[in-house]
């Protein structure tokens, strides 16, 4: 008997790690998807630019040269200068990390709270479920940016508060995904079986339920980064987020608005930067969805 168990363990060891096999097959599918490859590649490049780029910019992000203000793009200033003579190219590069961090951190906040609430609602069901999901409905009843505006108006305008606000409004999406999957898995017979073997709730949740929701969560998180960046830049555009002279793209766009008539490039360029980054995340998310989770739709 004892030997048999040992044998079993040996066989299990010899077989390739199942999570590795899964990862390999996901990679195989991802490689065939143009959108995942292009989007993912761009995201990697952007991360590199965000953290390495600032060391190589020709000017500082706050370096003013009022004599040369509102200059058109030239060899001296690749993307021209703004109303204070600051080099727009350098500011865009320095702003990249703000954009990415706003996207990532707010989604991580939403993800953690959402997963926690979703699991509790789905796993314990009953009244707890009703209360949590009703609360999610209420959050969903607030148009996203308005909810964020309300939160920022309470906490005061600052980029940190924008991150919190945008994070909170992405909670319901994650909670719904996790709750649905938890409900589906919880009713399976094998969960009953391991529970009767003495597995704790925590073990069931972490070992058996969470792995089942990782795919839809990764897909949703990637797409949420895109919307979070859009919302956050909108809040900064309204003056509720990053404050000048921070080189945040939404705030830069807002600055450029005043010079729209004569110097179109000041407002155009930060917008183009936002479009490219958001597009990359959307492409990547679409590709991930096709590879990881073909059943999931918009």
């Amino acid at each position, binding site marked *: 008997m004892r030997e048999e168990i040992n044998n079993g363990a040996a066989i299990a060891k010899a077989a390739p790690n199942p999570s590795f096999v899964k990862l390999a097959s996901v990679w195989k599918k991802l490689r065939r998807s143009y959108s995942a490859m292009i989007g993912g590649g761009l995201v990697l490049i952007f991360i590199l630019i965000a953290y390495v780029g600032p060391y190589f910019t020709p000017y500082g992000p706050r370096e003013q040269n009022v004599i040369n203000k509102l200059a058109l793009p030239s060899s001296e200033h690749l993307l021209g200068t703004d109303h204070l003579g600051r080099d727009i190219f350098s500011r865009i590069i320095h702003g990249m990390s703000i954009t990415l961090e706003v996207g990532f951190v707010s989604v991580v906040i939403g993800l953690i709270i959402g997963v926690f609430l979703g699991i509790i609602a789905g796993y314990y069901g009953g009244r707890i479920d009703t209360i949590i999901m009703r609360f999610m409905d209420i959050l969903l*009843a607030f148009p996203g940016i*308005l909810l964020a505006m309300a939160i920022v108006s309470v906490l005061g305008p600052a980029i940190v508060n924008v991150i919190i606000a945008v994070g909170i409004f992405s909670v319901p999406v994650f909670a719904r995904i996790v709750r649905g999957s938890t409900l589906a898995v919880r009713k399976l017979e094998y969960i009953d079986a391991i529970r009767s073997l003495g597995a704790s709730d925590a073990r069931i949740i972490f070992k058996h339920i969470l792995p089942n929701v990782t795919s839809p969560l990764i897909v949703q998180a990637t797409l949420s980064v895109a919307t979070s960046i859009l919302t956050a830049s*909108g809040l900064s555009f*309204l003056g509720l987020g990053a404050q000048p002279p921070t080189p945040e793209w939404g705030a830069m766009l807002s600055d450029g608005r005043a010079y729209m008539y004569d110097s179109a490039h000041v407002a155009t360029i*930060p917008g183009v930067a*936002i*479009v490219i980054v958001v*597009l990359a995340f959307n492409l990547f998310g679409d590709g991930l969805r096709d590879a990881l989770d073909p059943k999931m739709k918009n």
Partner: protein
Amino acid sequence: MFTFIIRRLVQTIPVLIGVTILTFSMIHLVPGDPAQIMAGESASPQQVELMRERLGLNDPIPVQYFDYVSGVLQGDLGNSVRSGRAVSDEIAIRIRPTVELATMSTALSVFIGLIAGVLAAVRRNTFGDTFIMLVALFGLSMPNFWLGIMLIQYLAIGVDIFGFNTGIFAASGWGTWQQQVLPVITLGVAGAAIIARMTRSSMLEVIDQDYIRTARAKGVKERVVVYRHALKNAMIPVVTVVGLQFGSLLGGAVLTESVFAINGLGRFMIDAIRARDFPIMQGGVLVLAFMFVSVNIVVDILYRFLNKRIDLN
């Protein structure tokens, strides 16, 4: 059907109560003394005390909430701190442009989104399909305030091409059609993109089903198959998206109104946030959330109506 409508209405009651709790708590979650903030930093202690009294902040919280809700139920949303006028009156003046903007943009996005989605679906995996979907992805990735500024740049201020100036639309305001075209496009593009993507995937799901093959086998014209048989069922999930989309549309309206200097509810609320005029913010959020909830009730009813397979009870 009737019981379903009643049930759906009853279900919204807890949501609406939750919404009022949230808007009510906004004022209490502010770090610091709300009375001091609203009276202004230079206000004397007497003025702050007066403000506190005016806002009823000396009462216990449950009493304050009860007063707030009974006020809301009677259409009393309090008074603006800045102008002193009733919030409900202030909102009533400004709500029309916002509602018109949101409605027109929804119509535009449904129209463009459906056509683009169907075109992409019938040309599945061709160049046309890829092109339409790329444009949609682009539309989804654009900040609408930037799109608005670009439209102003090229179609309101305009550039000269062959001695003809492209600035044929107005850059600000709301009223004439020249003023309405650009904001409606600005706000409608993202929705059109989402609806196009949804329509395409939903059409693709429907178009492989047996009843479509049967219709084709019977010799029904392809156009009738696509628009009568397939689209009708493909519309079902699209309807839900339109309802949910209306929420982001209301949010987007805030940005659009700001870009085009439209004197609507959204811009009014941003000004209120800057001035820390809490009653206006509370009222505005409440009204917009109420609009969103109502639209989604209508959408749900429409959804059940379209999708007869769903058990009505």
